[in-house]
C-alpha cells in the first residue's frame, strides 16, 4: 500500500452567520464540513462526489488552506497545515495547487496568458526573466496550447482552452497535490473528454495526486482510484471506484448511483430507480443523528438519535451507517432495492 500524502483528521469548516450591525453577534453556523477523516494517498486520484451544498468544494479549499478550518488537522509532509501561520504556509503552497470550476471567472481578464501562467513562478521565486517565459511556453505546450498565444488574453480563448490555461497555471510550480474543483462541469461534452484525458496524462507524467471534486459520478468513477461520497458535510462512504459502484453500502450512495442516467437506452429501460423523496436539509441546522435519516428509506430509531461512526466495513471500504450493524433491516424492509442497484 502506498503511503498517505495528506491525512485529514476531524476536519471541520463552519461559517458563522452574524446578525445585527452594531452589536454583531453570531446567531448560527453553516456547518459546511463537519468532521472528516480520510487519507489521500500518494499518486492516487481521490474522487469527491456529492450534491450541491454537501461541502465538497469547501473540503477541497479547506485542505489546501484557502479557508482556514474551524477545527481538525490536515497533515502534509509531517506538518499540520492548520497550525501554520500564513508565512510558514507560503513555501508549502507551491505544492498544493487548485484547478477551478469556472474557466471564465478564475482567470484575470486583464492579464495575458503568459502572465497568468507565469505568476506562480514569480510568486514563489522559481524563475526570473527569460526563464519565466521559457517555462510558460513549455507549460503551454504540455497542456496543448499553442505557445504562440502567450500574449493573448483569456477572452480570446474558448472554454476548453481556458481550462487548459488554468491547468497550466496549477502545474507551473511542479506541485505534488492538485485540488480539481469541478474542472469539467462548465465544458461541453466533447471538450470534457479532452480535459479528462489531459489530466490523466499529466498525472502519469508528473506523478501528481488529485482530489477530483465533481457532482458527475460517471466522470468521477472514470478518473478516480478511490471515491468518497459526501452528504451534508460528512463523508457517507468511501471505497475504490469499483466497490462504490458494484457494492455500495450506504443507502445514499445506492440512491445516487441509481439516479445517474446511463447513456444506453436498453440498460435504462431495465434499471430501477431509488428515487429519494425531499430535498437536502439545511447545513445550518442539520438533522440530529445520521444527517441522511430524513431521506433514508431504511431509517430507524437509532439513526435519528446517534451519529453513525465512519468505520471500515470491509477492507478499504469505509461507511458511516447504522445499518452496517443490523444488516437484516436492509433485506427485510424494502425488498428489491439491493437488486435494483446491482
Amino acid at each position, binding site marked *: 500500500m502506498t503511503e498517505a500524502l495528506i491525512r485529514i483528521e476531524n476536519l471541520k469548516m463552519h461559517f458563522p452567520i452574524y446578525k445585527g450591525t452594531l452589536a454583531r453577534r453570531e446567531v448560527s453556523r453553516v456547518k459546511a464540513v463537519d468532521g472528516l477523516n480520510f487519507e489521500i494517498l500518494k499518486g492516487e486520484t481521490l474522487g469527491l462526489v456529492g450534491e450541491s451544498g454537501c461541502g465538497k468544494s469547501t473540503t477541497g479549499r479547506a485542505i489546501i488552506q484557502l479557508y482556514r478550518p474551524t477545527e481538525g488537522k490536515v497533515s502534509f509532509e509531517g506538518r499540520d497545515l492548520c497550525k501554520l501561520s500564513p508565512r510558514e504556509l507560503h513555501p508549502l503552497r507551491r505544492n498544493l495547487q487548485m484547478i477551478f470550476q469556472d474557466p471564465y471567472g478564475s482567470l484575470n481578464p486583464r492579464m495575458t496568458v503568459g502572465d497568468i501562467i507565469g505568476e506562480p513562478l514569480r510568486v514563489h521565486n522559481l524563475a526570473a526573466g527569460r526563464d519565466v517565459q521559457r517555462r510558460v511556453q513549455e507549460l503551454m505546450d504540455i497542456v496543448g496550447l499553442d505557445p504562440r498565444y502567450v500574449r493573448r488574453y483569456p477572452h480570446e480563448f474558448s472554454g476548453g482552452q481556458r481550462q487548459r490555461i488554468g491547468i497550466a497555471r496549477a502545474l507551473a510550480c511542479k506541485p505534488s497535490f492538485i485540488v480539481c474543483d469541478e474542472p469539467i462541469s462548465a465544458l461541453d461534452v466533447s471538450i470534457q473528454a479532452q480535459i479528462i484525458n489531459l489530466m490523466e496524462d499529466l498525472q502519469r507524467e508528473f506523478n501528481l495526486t488529485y482530489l477530483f471534486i465533481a457532482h458527475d459520478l460517471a466522470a468521477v468513477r472514470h478518473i478516480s482510484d478511490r471515491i468518497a461520497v459526501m452528504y451534508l458535510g460528512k463523508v457517507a462512504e468511501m471505497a475504490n471506484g469499483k466497490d462504490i459502484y458494484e457494492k455500495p453500502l450506504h443507502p445514499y450512495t445506492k440512491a445516487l448511483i441509481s439516479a445517474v442516467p446511463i447513456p444506453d*437506452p436498453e*440498460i435504462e429501460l431495465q434499471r430501477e430507480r431509488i428515487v429519494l423523496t425531499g430535498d437536502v436539509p439545511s447545513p445550518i441546522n442539520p438533522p440530529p443523528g445520521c444527517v441522511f435519516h430524513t431521506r433514508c428509506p431504511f431509517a430507524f430509531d437509532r439513526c435519528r438519535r446517534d451519529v453513525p461512526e465512519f468505520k471500515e466495513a470491509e477492507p478499504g471500504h469505509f461507511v458511516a451507517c447504522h445499518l452496517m450493524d443490523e444488516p437484516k433491516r436492509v433485506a427485510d424492509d424494502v425488498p428489491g432495492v439491493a437488486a435494483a442497484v446491482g
Partner: protein
Amino acid sequence: MANDSAAPMVEDQTPVLEVRDLKTYFHVEGSVVRAVDGVSFQVKRGECLGVVGESGSGKSVCQISVLGLIPSPPGKNEGGQVIFGGKDLLKASSGELRKIRGNRISMIWQDPMSSLNPFLRVSRQLIEPLQIHQNMGKEQAREKAIKMLEKVGIPGPRERFDQYPHQFSGGMRQRVMIAMALLCEPELLIADEPTTALDVTIQAQILELIKDLRKDFGTSVVMITHDLGVVAGMADRVIVMYAGKIMEEANAVDLFRRPAHPYTVGLLRSVPRLDLGASGRLIPIDGRPPDVSKPIPGCPFAPRCRWAESRCHTEFPPLADLGPGHSSYCWRAEDIYKAELGSRVTNAQFHKAEANLKGAEHVPEGADAAPQVAQACELPETPEKPVQSEESGVDR
C-alpha cells in the same frame, strides 16, 4: 382535449408538430449567425423526442423558433414551416401564437430560478394561464392549480400555494414550472434542459415525474439536452444536432446501438459511463465546434471528423436512409452504420473498426499529429478572436 383539430385519432401517425426546413439566423454586427440552418423533423403524437447537441448547436434556438419566441432583431426566421394543428406557426399572428403558447404548446425552461417571476406569488402565476386560456373563474382555477401542484409532487400544496418562488428549493421550483406548463393540458411540451440545473437525485425525481405525466396526459414531449444519459432514459426518438443542422435521426435504441454519424459516435465515445467505470481512455472529439457565423461549405463536422474524405469539406452530404426512421447526413453513413460503433463497443473494438473505416485513402487532416501529452486537441489556428481584429489582420 381543448382542441378539436386533433379529433380523428389516427393513432401515432399524425405528427403533433412538423418542422420543415426551418432556418433561424441572427444578424449580429454585420455577420449572419446561422443558428438553425435547414432543420426538419416531426414530433409524433405521444412520443418523446430527444434533441441532443452541445452548446451552440442550435438545439434550443430551434425549439424556441417553433414558439415564435426568437428575439427579433437580431433573430430572424429566414425560411421553413412549422406546422402545428394544421397551421404554419411562422405565419401566425402574435395573437394566434399567444393562444397556442402556454395552452397547446408549453415550455419548461432550464433555469427555474429565473423563469418564475420573483415578485409574484406562485398562485398568481399558476392561475394566470387558466384564466387567460380556459376562461376559468378565479376559484375554479385555484382549485385546478392546487390539484396540479399536488400531482407534480409538491407536499402541502394548499399551504405552499401562496408562497413566493424564493421559498421553494430548486427541485420544487422546477416542479412548479412543470405544473404551470401542464395546467392547460398541452398537446406538446418542450423541455429545454429541464434538469441541467438540478442535482442528480433531484434530476431523477423530475425525470420520473415527466415520464408519469406523459403517461397520464398523453402529452408529446420534446426534450432538449446535452446529456446522453437523460436522452437514453427518456426519449423514444432522438435527433442529434451540430452547428445548426441535424446530423442524425433515429429511434433511441438504434442511435445508441448503431450510430451512423461520426459526431454521434464521437459523443458516445467521449462520455464516461458509470456502469463501465474506468474501462480505458475516453476518446474525445478533437477540435471544437465551428463558428457558424461564417458559411460552411461542406459538412460542418468535417474538420473534427476522424473519417472525413475530401468531399466532406466541400459538399454537404445528402440524407442517407438506414432503415425505418434512421437517417444520417454523412457521406460515409453506410460504412459507419455497418461498423456498429454503438455505446457498448469497447475501445479495442472501436480502434479495430476505426482502422477499417479509415481505409487507405481516408486520412483525415491532422490524423498523424497526435504527439506526446495532449497536443492535437483543440488547436485551430486561431482561438476565438474577436472577429474584427483577426479578420482585418488576414485581409491585410
